[in-house]
C-alpha cells in the first residue's frame, strides 16, 4: 500500500489535485513533483485538496509552500481546499500557519472564484419550465 495517493481532474482551466493517505518526509518531495508536473502551463490555477488526508506534518506543509512558490513563478495561483475539521487543518493550526495560505473550505467554493460564468448572477429563463 502506498502511503498516499493523488487523483487529478480538470475543471475548465483549473487543475484539481485531491490528496489522500498520509504525507510525511518519505513522500512529500515526490508528491510535490507529481503535482507540479500534472499542472500544465496553460492552467489558470491549482486546487490542492487536502480534505481526504489522514496525516500531514511539517514535511507536508513545506510541500504546500514550495508548490505555491513554483506555481507563482509560472504566473499561476493555488488554493488550498481544507475543511476546518480535518487532520490537515490540525497540523496547520499547530504549526501556526493556518492563515498564511489562500484557503477554501470546499472544491466547489474554490472553483467559484475561477469560474467566469459564476461572476454574473444566473438569471433563469422565464420561458423555461
Amino acid at each position, binding site marked *: *500500500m502506498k502511503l498516499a495517493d493523488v487523483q487529478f481532474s480538470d475543471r475548465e482551466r483549473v487543475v484539481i489535485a485531491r490528496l489522500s493517505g498520509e504525507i510525511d518526509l518519505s513522500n512529500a518531495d515526490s508528491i510535490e513533483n507529481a503535482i507540479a508536473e500534472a499542472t500544465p502551463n496553460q492552467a489558470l490555477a491549482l486546487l490542492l485538496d487536502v480534505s481526504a488526508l489522514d*496525516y500531514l*506534518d511539517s*514535511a507536508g506543509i513545506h510541500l504546500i509552500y*514550495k508548490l505555491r512558490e513554483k506555481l507563482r513563478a509560472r504566473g499561476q495561483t493555488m488554493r488550498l481546499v481544507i475543511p476546518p475539521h480535518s487532520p490537515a487543518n490540525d497540523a496547520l493550526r*499547530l504549526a501556526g500557519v493556518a492563515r498564511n495560505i489562500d484557503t477554501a473550505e470546499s472544491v466547489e467554493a474554490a472553483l467559484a472564484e475561477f469560474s467566469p460564468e459564476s461572476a454574473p448572477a444566473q438569471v433563469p429563463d422565464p420561458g423555461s419550465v
Partner: protein
Amino acid sequence: MGGAGQNSHVTLENPHQREPRAGHAVLGPVEPALAPAHQVEAFARLSDPALSELGLEEFLDELLLRVREALGVDTVAILLHDRANHQLVARAAKGIEEEVEQGVRIPIGQGFAGRIAEERVAVFIADVDHADILNPILREKGIRSLLGIPLIVEGELIGVLHVGSLVPREFGQRDLAVLQVAAARAAPGIERARLFSELEREHQVAMVLQRSLLPKRLLDVIGVKTAARYLPASDEVGGDWYDVFELARGRLGVAIGDVVGHGVRAAALMGQLRTALHAYAMQDYGPARTLELVDRFVQAMPDYAMATAAYAVLEPDTGEVQLASAGHLPPIVVGAGGGRVVDITPSAPLGAFSYGRVQEQELVLRPGETLVFYTDGLVERPGTPLTDSIDTLLEVVKGARSVDDLCRQAVERLVPVAGLRDDVAIVAIQNSEIDDELNLSLPADPKILSEIRLLLRRWLRHHGANDSQTLEITLAVSEACTNAIEHAYSPAPADFTLQATAHDDQLTFVITDVGRWRAPRGQDRGRGLTIIRAAMDDVEVESSDTGTQITMRRRITP
C-alpha cells in the same frame, strides 16, 4: 554375420518391426543363452535397479558409460524424438559429446539415425566413409563403424541409441543384444522423465502463481504478527491461495480462497481471483463489497468458474475485524484460553448465483488472539465429519507459541505423510500484546515514520488517549523522529531510538539521535519544533557533540 559391403548397410530386425526390409540383410533372433560370462555381467550392469534411483542426467550418463564398457566401443549417443519438429535431437553422448553440445538435429528419415527412427529398425554401418551419413561430427570424429537401434515405448518412438567404433568393426547379434537391453532400459526412463518434467513444469508454474509474499514491514513492532503456509497436492496443482496486504490508515487485509477444480486452469484462475480481490480491497471496499465485486468478476468470465473465499480487515488500533465469507470454511480464533470456531454465516460461493449478496460481520481480536483462515485440504479427510476435523485443528494449534509455530504445527500434524490429495493454504494473523513501555532502536529511514505512527496510535489507545490527543501526540513524535532522521546525513546507515513511558496519565517520549540539532533552514523550516511545542505540555532539546535528545511530555487527563 552381416556382410557389410562397401556400399551397403545391414538392417537388423527390430522386435517392433517384424517385416524384413527388402534390400537389407536381416539377422536372425538374438540368442542370449549363448552370451559369454562378460556379457552376462554387462547385462546385469545395464539392468542394475540402482540406475532407477538416479535423475535423468545421471541415469543417461551412467547408462552410456556402461554401454560403452560392455561393448568396448568408442562412442555412444542418444538422440530423442522431437515430435513437434519431426526431428531427432542429440540428448546424451560419450566420446562424441560435441553432438549434444552443438545440439545436433537430424530430420526423421534422413541419414543414419533418421532412418533408424523412421523405419524403426536396427541399422549397422560397416564403413562410414561410404554410407549415407548426415551428421558431419560422426565423420570428423573418425568413426568407422556404427550400430544403432530405435528406442520405443508402447509403440511410440522415443529416440535412437547408437554406438560407434574408431576402427572398422563387424557388430554382431551379441552386440545388438546388449544394445537392446540398454535401449529397453533407457526408453521407459526417458519417457517417465519427460512426463515428469512436464508435470514438474506445470507444478512450477502453479507454485509461481501461488507464491504470496507477506508484506514487508515491521509487523512485530506495530503489534500485528502474520504467518502463512502453502502446500501443493502431491500429484496435481490446485487453486488455493492466501494474501496479506496493507490498507490505508494502517489496517491490514487478510484473504484466503480456493478455486473449485485442479490443474493449471484452476491455478491460473486462482491467480486472477487473487489479483482481483487484492485490487478491489485496495479501493477500500470492505470485506463484503470486495467479495461481491470478485463474484461479479467471476460471473463475467467466459468459462464456468467457482471459488470460495473469505476476506477480513483488521484495525490494529482496536483489534476490530470486519469479516465476510463467500462459501468458505469458518475461520478459527486461537488465544491463551484455547480456541473457538468463528460463528459465521457464509454467503454463496463466488460464481454461484447472479448478483449474490455477501454478508459482513464483526469480531474483536483481543491482544494475544490469532485469527486463522485455512482451506479444505487441511481439514477434509475421508470418513471424518468436517466439524470433527476442525475440532482437531483447534486442538493441534491451541498450544502454539507463535503465529509461525501455529501454521507449522497445523501443517505438520494434519497433513498426512503420504502426501496431500488436495492443496492446502493456511494464514494466521495475531493482534499481539501491547507493551506498557516502548524502547525501540529504529533505522534513520523516512519510510519508518508511518510505521512509528501506527505503533504509536495503538500504544496511545492502550493508555487511554482520546482521538484528538492521539492525533496531536502522534504528530509531535513523528516530527521529532523526522528530525532525528534528517540529522543522520552520514553515508552509513544510522539508527535512532524512541522511548515511550506512561506514569498514570503522564506520557513521556524521548527521541535520541547521534547527529546535531540542525538550525532551521529558511523560513519554512523549523515548523517541526513549532508543532512539537504546540502539541506537547513541555519539550526539552539537549544537543551535544555526540547527538541530540528531545524529551517531551503530555498529560492525557480528559
